[in-house]
Every structure is written in structure tokens, then in C-alpha cells.
């Protein structure tokens, strides 16, 4: 009797381990449109309303937690913000002079509004799910293919670029954040718009991105803005990321002046407190 129980226990254990390994292998072997991916999307489709309801119901509790966290963080930021206020005051005076110059120059330069996003088909969505593990920097938004959302569409929040749509369901879409290890964004930085590729500096750190493949003598300094370049890494086709979407600000440069120089930047968007985001469903403007 005892032997039978032990044998059965071991058989079930072996069977389940084999099932896990088969699933793992099959999942890696199939394309994004395969059967297992389809099952995942179908199940998520069913559970999305439940998750959305729970997300809305728990908003007050999340806000309460956020309030405690923000209060602690705010105390630490007071001194930094005072310094920034003083610096901004002096910048305002300078900018007023520059603004007058700009008004004159703007009449001379023909700006076609390439940075304007009004014609990019903006869809505002609520974040209804965040990845429970730090290994996947993903969120889910309550806008899907029914709203015109497709794979690859860029996603922004009120501050900057947030990520890209990687899975689409009827009423929801999975967004992979720019802090995910699979993400690479063509970008440019500095006054001369030096090109490079932005990717996460390390897994699980939402505040540190890295810009690679810049020229060794590129003129980039701490504090420079980094924006999207608007082309794919291979330079062969136009990227779905429009030109000039803000990504972050340069914080430090490692191995400066060498072939392996790495420019660290802090993203403008706070990836851990995303509430509403906008999806650019027509990222190339009129040529959809």
C-alpha cells in the first residue's frame, strides 16, 4: 500500500514536470499567433472585465498606499526641488529673452508640426494590470483592437514615451515598457542629435536606461534630453515611434570618449505609477 502511494506520488510529479517542460518548449517554438498564445489571449480576454472591475474597486486603496509612499518620498525631495526652483527662476529670465528671439525665428522657419501629436490617433486608456513579476516590465491597458490598437503602436503618458504595444486583444492591449529587457528604442541626444539605441541598463531597475552605440566623440553631456529618433536600428524602415518623443535625461556617462561608451539616462516617465496612458494608433500621421 505504501509502495503504491509512493509510486503514484512520484508518477504524478514526473508527469507534471514533463508537462511544464513540454509547455515551455512548445511556447518557445511557436510564433506569436500559435495555439498556446491564442489560449493565453482568449483567457485574458475573458478575465479582462474582472481585472478592470477589481482595478477600479481598489483604486482608493492604491491611492492610500501611494499617499503614504509619496509623503515619505516628498520629504526627501524638498531640498532638491528648492535648488531646482532657484535654477529655474534664473532660467525663466533667460528664456524670456530667448522667447522673443524664438518668435521672430519661428516666422522664418517653416515648421510642419512634425512633433505635434494631434493627428496620431491618440487613444487614452486606463492601466488595468501590471506584471506581478519584476522580470516582465509590462502593463495592460483597457483599449484593444476594437479601438484600432495594433501591435507595435507606441505608448506615452503625460510625461514621455512609456513603451510599445506587444499583444492585442479585443478590449485590451499588453504594453511592454521601455524598461523591459527586450526593448530597444532608436534615439538621439544632445544639441547635435547624436544617434544611439536606448535599452534598460539592467533587469528590474525602472530608473536607469542606457544609450549604446553612440560615436566616441559624440557631444553629449549630463542633463541632455534624449528623444526618439524615428527609425529602426537597421535604418531600413521608418519606426512606429514618431520623431522627437521625449524618453529621458542623461544622468552620467561611462567610458566617455571610447568605443564602448555608455550613456545612462533616467526616464521621464515613472513606470511604477502608470495610471492612464495614450496609445498612438496612427503613429505615422496621415499615411495610415
Amino acid at each position: 500500500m505504501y509502495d503504491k502511494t509512493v509510486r503514484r506520488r512520484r508518477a504524478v510529479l514526473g508527469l507534471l514536470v514533463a508537462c511544464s517542460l513540454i509547455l515551455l518548449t512548445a511556447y518557445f517554438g511557436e510564433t506569436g499567433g500559435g495555439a498556446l498564445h491564442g489560449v493565453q489571449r482568449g483567457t485574458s480576454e475573458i478575465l479582462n472585465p474582472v481585472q478592470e472591475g477589481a482595478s477600479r474597486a481598489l483604486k482608493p486603496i492604491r491611492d492610500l498606499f501611494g499617499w503614504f509612499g509619496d509623503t515619505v518620498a516628498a520629504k526627501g525631495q524638498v531640498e532638491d526641488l528648492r535648488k531646482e526652483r532657484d535654477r529655474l527662476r534664473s532660467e525663466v529670465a533667460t528664456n524670456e529673452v530667448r522667447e522673443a528671439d524664438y518668435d521672430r525665428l519661428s516666422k522664418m522657419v517653416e515648421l510642419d508640426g512634425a512633433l505635434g501629436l494631434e493627428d496620431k490617433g491618440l487613444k487614452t486608456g486606463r492601466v488595468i494590470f501590471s506584471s506581478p513579476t519584476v522580470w516582465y516590465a509590462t502593463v495592460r491597458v483597457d483599449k484593444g483592437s476594437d479601438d484600432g490598437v495594433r501591435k507595435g503602436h507606441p505608448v506615452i503618458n503625460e510625461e514621455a514615451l512609456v513603451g510599445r504595444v506587444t499583444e492585442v486583444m479585443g478590449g485590451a492591449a499588453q504594453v511592454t515598457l521601455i524598461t523591459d529587457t527586450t526593448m530597444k528604442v532608436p534615439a538621439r541626444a544632445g544639441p547635435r542629435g547624436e544617434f544611439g539605441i536606448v535599452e534598460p541598463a539592467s533587469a528590474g531597475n525602472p530608473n536607469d536606461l542606457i544609450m549604446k552605440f553612440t560615436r566616441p566623440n559624440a557631444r553629449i553631456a549630463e542633463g541632455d534630453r534624449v528623444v526618439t529618433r524615428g527609425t529602426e536600428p537597421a535604418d531600413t524602415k521608418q519606426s512606429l515611434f514618431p520623431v522627437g518623443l521625449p524618453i529621458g535625461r542623461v544622468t552620467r556617462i561611462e567610458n566617455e570618449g571610447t568605443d564602448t561608451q555608455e550613456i545612462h539616462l533616467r526616464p521621464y516617465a515613472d513606470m511604477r505609477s502608470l495610471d492612464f496612458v495614450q496609445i498612438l494608433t496612427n503613429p505615422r500621421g496621415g499615411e495610415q
Partner: protein
Amino acid sequence: MTPTAALIARLCGVGVLGVVVQTAAISQLPIAGANADLSPLLVMAVGLLCGSLAGGSFGFGVGLFADVVSLQTLGVSSLVLLGVGYGAGRLREARDPEGTLVPIAVGAAATLAFGVGFALLQFLLGVDAPVSWALLRQLLATLVINTLLALPVYALVRRCLQAALPDDPRRRRRRAYTTGGLSPLSRGMEIRR
């Protein structure tokens, strides 16, 4: 322990509800920069209450459902949680530990095993980014939060399963005490007296 139909139904309910609550609510409540992770705690509780067979199967099911719902790589969580549930179940079968603090210690061990196992599998599957201190800090914070939650989660799971459990650990021990102990060793000591 052979799982009955009532127990299987309750386990399915606990698993589905646990994963939905985890993905819809808990994962959106950051505490000290990290989130609680109910999955290893639920699996640990079922392993301790129902044994290795039910614990391992429950771990596999919860992991698979979590992977499906989160659109993650299928099979990763199920493989790791299967080990966690089986381990907790074997602990119960081999040692039958008693004491209020057992779920806390086993919950912490389950969370640690899940975190380390998940990380190892991610590296085996080819994550080419280096591990940051921020990630280690988050894993540590999750471990602390889960350790604090282990006892309430264990109590909740026991409450959900109690009616369907053929031999509740507390009832079994109480029976052993009132009948003078079940083991031959304790019986031998009684005779010597």
C-alpha cells in the same frame, strides 16, 4: 491523502480567486518598491494542509493559470510552483511540523525558492541583461512582505479547505494527544511507566 471531489473543487476556487486577486489588485499595490506575491504562499499552504500530491498539482495549476493570465512564458511559473507545493507537502508528510510559526518559516522558504527558481529559469531561457541591485532589493522586499503575509494566507486557505479536508492537522494532533499518542515510541514510554 487522496483528494476528494469536494477538495478538488475548493482547491480550484482558491487557485483561480488567488491568481485573479494577485493580478488585478495585489500586483498594483507597491509596498517599499515591491509587491506581495500570493502564489507561493497559496501553494505552500495547500502543500502543508493537503500533502505533496495535492500541493504539487495545485502549484502546477496555479503557475499555469498565472502564466496564462499574465501573458508570460508558459511553463515557467508552473514548473517552479510545482516544486514549491511538492516540497511543502513532503515536509508535512515526513515531519508533520506543528507550531504557529511553521507557516511563516515555510512561507518565507517558499517565496525564496520561487524567487530563486524563477530567476534561474529566466537566465536559462536567455535573459541577456545583468542583474541589478534594484532587482535584488525587490526580491528581498517581496520576501519580507510575503513572510508577514504567510500566516494570514495560511489561515485563510485552511478556513476555505477545512470542511473538505479528511484529516485536518490540528484535529489529527488533538486526537493523538487524547489517545495517548499514536507512535510506537510514545506507547512504549507509557508501558515503561
